[in-house]
């Protein structure tokens, strides 16, 4: 095996610490933890203790890290969304490779600017669109693109966020306000737009969207609901009561997020008395959509649809791919994938189950697979076609920004320019090429 790849974790939160560092420490990934950048002293110290990072490689600020002697091969940027761009640019300029959490950036201009950064720095920026690595979606794409079933004619992808997950992350959590992070179609669903573009494999021609914050607003507050659950008369019955949901002994996500360092029941109670996770879901400052649908057309008139739904029981993704000779249907979380082969006869189908292994987390095992493939990519140049390189990930963000523009403008198609055209309008195609017209 080639030598280990030394990782600098930038942002020791739920993703940086509990997912990536934990996987690196407990699984054979080829990576090893070398350094950490984390402004919160308690978190930073806890991280160093948990993974044996020496003090001289634990930094409170990225500038200190950048000023120090080089201490790793790749930086994992797992910070809050608004600083993804500046951090990615800074570490790239120091020559580090980067695994960048989605979203790439919170504006289209910054997203495109990173392409130029990568070209200038000759480093490799990989976007953590982890779902592409999930065995489930790998299988979907392989089957859909195999040619065995003819061309892809339609794809429908549904993101079932799960009502408790939505309340946690998008009503109370870091992604609740488009102004503080970005619209949910970017912060959450860049995954899904990335999957659609990756599965279909043709250039998108137009996108259209609608959506709104229909439910998590004051209109739905029960009478007498207070601003915080701890003193609310409904705290024992409300579906979204923070006292019922968080004050327990589960060390799992999302419960551990509310008091990330000292996680006793008393700490949790204190957090919901004062912190964001104790606020009423109906009387909050959240503004991101709790339901949104997107339609997009790819070359050759292939129509794809995406639906983001907050009010689901399951936290999963479901997909349907219609092809010339078969229908593929599956559920990520259940790890269920079936192919119904058309026979040309009425009521006669040949249904095949695709074996995928046991049910899994909401990323479908993609986090670990990402690390395994990323390691082989960085060290041996493998998986060029599958890896979520910046270049192959930018389309999803272009789609997300345009979908949001369409939604805000009350719907209607927006043409999707090619990335080259966005960078330089001189690359625009001749007028009239805007996809199929009815």
């Amino acid at each position, binding site marked *: 095996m080639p030598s280990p790849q030394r990782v600098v974790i930038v942002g020791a939160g739920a993703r940086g610490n509990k997912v990536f560092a934990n996987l690196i420490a407990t699984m054979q990934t080829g990576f090893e933890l070398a350094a950490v950048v984390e402004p919160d002293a308690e978190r930073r110290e806890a991280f160093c203790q948990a993974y044996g990072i020496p003090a001289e490689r634990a930094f409170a600020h990225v500038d200190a890290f950048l000023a120090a002697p080089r201490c790793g091969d790749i930086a994992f940027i797992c910070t809050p969304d608004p600083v993804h761009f500046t951090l990615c640019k800074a570490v790239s300029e120091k020559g580090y490779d980067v695994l960048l959490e989605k979203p790439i950036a919170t504006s289209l201009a910054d997203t495109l600017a990173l392409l130029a950064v990568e070209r200038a720095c000759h480093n490799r920026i990989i976007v953590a669109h982890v779902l592409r690595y999930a065995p489930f979606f790998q299988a979907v794409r392989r089957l859909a693109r195999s040619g065995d079933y003819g061309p892809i004619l339609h794809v429908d992808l549904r993101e079932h966020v799960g009502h*408790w997950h939505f309340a946690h992350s998008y009503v109370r959590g870091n992604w609740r306000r488009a102004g503080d992070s970005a619209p949910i179609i970017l912060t959450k669903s860049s995954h899904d737009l990335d999957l659609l573009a990756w599965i279909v494999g043709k250039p998108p021609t137009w996108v259209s969207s609608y959506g709104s914050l229909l439910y998590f607003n004051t209109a739905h507050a029960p009478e007498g609901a207070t601003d915080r659950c701890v003193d609310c008369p409904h705290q024992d019955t409300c579906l979204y009561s923070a006292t019922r949901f968080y004050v327990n002994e589960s060390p799992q996500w999302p419960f551990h997020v509310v008091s990330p360092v000292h996680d006793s029941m008393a700490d949790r109670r204190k957090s919901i008395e004062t912190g964001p996770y104790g606020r009423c879901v109906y009387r909050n400052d959240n503004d991101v959509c709790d*339901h949104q649908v997107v339609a997009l057309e790819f070359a050759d008139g292939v*129509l794809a649809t995406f639906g983001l739904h907050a009010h689901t029981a399951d936290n999963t993704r479901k997909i349907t791919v219609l092809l*010339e000779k078969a229908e593929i249907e599956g559920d990520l979380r259940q790890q269920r994938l079936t192919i119904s082969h058309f026979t040309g006869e*009425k009521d006669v189908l040949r249904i095949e189950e695709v074996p995928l292994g046991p049910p899994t987390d909401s990323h479908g095992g993609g986090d670990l697979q990402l690390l395994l493939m990323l390691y082989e990519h960085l060290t041996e140049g493998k998986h060029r076609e599958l890896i979520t390189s910046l270049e192959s990930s930018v389309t999803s963000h272009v789609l997300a920004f345009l979908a949001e523009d369409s939604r805000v403008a009350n*719907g209607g198609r927006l043409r999707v320019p090619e990335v080259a055209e966005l960078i330089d309008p001189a690359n625009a195609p001749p007028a009239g090429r805007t996809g199929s017209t009815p």
Partner: protein
Amino acid sequence: MAGVVEPDDRRRAAVRRAHDLPPAHAFADIDAFLAAPRFCRTVFVCTPDHAHYRICKAVARAGYDVLLEKPVAHNIAETLALLEIEHATETRIVVAHVLRYTPFFTKVRELVQGGALGRVLHVKLTECIGQWHFAHSYVRGNWRRTDTSGPIILTKSSHDLDILAWLLDAEATWVSSEGSLVYFNEAHAPVGATERCVACPHRETCLYSATRFYLNDRHEWPYNVIAPIDDTPAARAHALETGPYGRCVYHNDNDVCDTEITWIRFASGATANFSLQAHTAENTRRITIWCEGGAISGDLRENALTVTRLGPGIDSTAERLDLGAPVDSHGGGDIRMLHALHDYFAHGIQTDQISSLDRSVASHLLAFLAEESRRSGGVRIPMVRARPTSS
């Protein structure tokens, strides 16, 4: 069964024989029927689509109650004109929106309107037409062209738009639609495909080979459609040589969409996402209704629903409701509609399902506006008022 109006002599004779009708109650055209002495109370209008409006108008004005097959008319003006006639006369016009009467959708509406799951937030309804059914009816059959029948959002999916409006019992505020004929066109013809299957080099292997599909000894729909009177092997073979059902699905004159999505917003704030898909394995409809407190989802053909209730933690409970044996693509709605219709016409009992014209017109208005949106690049179209404003 009291009488029949049918221009085809052989079909008319066959119906007369089958139901033992007197010769005086069999007519070659609607004018002869209307001129004859009255011998019945109700007329079922089951003609090709383009004649629905004209015939319905004539029999309604003559005072007959009407069961009218969908679509009721081909534009908003005609649809509203029929509504005026219904309002201005004693006539009752009921639209054959048979899906309302199925145990499946009846149960869905009961659950939605019962309110146990709270307010409806979003509905996803998918019409899986099934690739063979689409090829039969919408590539080769009567509903393949917008100009001779209507856009598929009207001829096929007025059912679905009706179900959405009926389930939510809410007024639409806007509609938008996107869709096209993605697959059944020249671009997908195998090399060397001929205009008819009987002479085609691909007839043994093509998924849509008419010779493989129709030349069998099954006598149910859709096979029996191609030689409707003498359904012999020779008659079917002849039909494939000369009739519409023997034509290549790729070299044809069809133009209706094989993929279409329609978004609707209701005054309640709820939204609906309807998808019509030709290239599906099953011929069924699937629905999920997300409500404040959970969801109702199911598959019409499986005749089963799942009611999910959200829990206070990460777990939810799901209850499966089996509504009986699996059913045909109308979900057992045809016979139940006749029972409900009889109670309505004979005894004035108006159940929740009764698809009287005034309670059905929204689906047609939505269909016309969806088509207008689709042709205009998916722009949102505000819903028009259903009721005529002038007397």
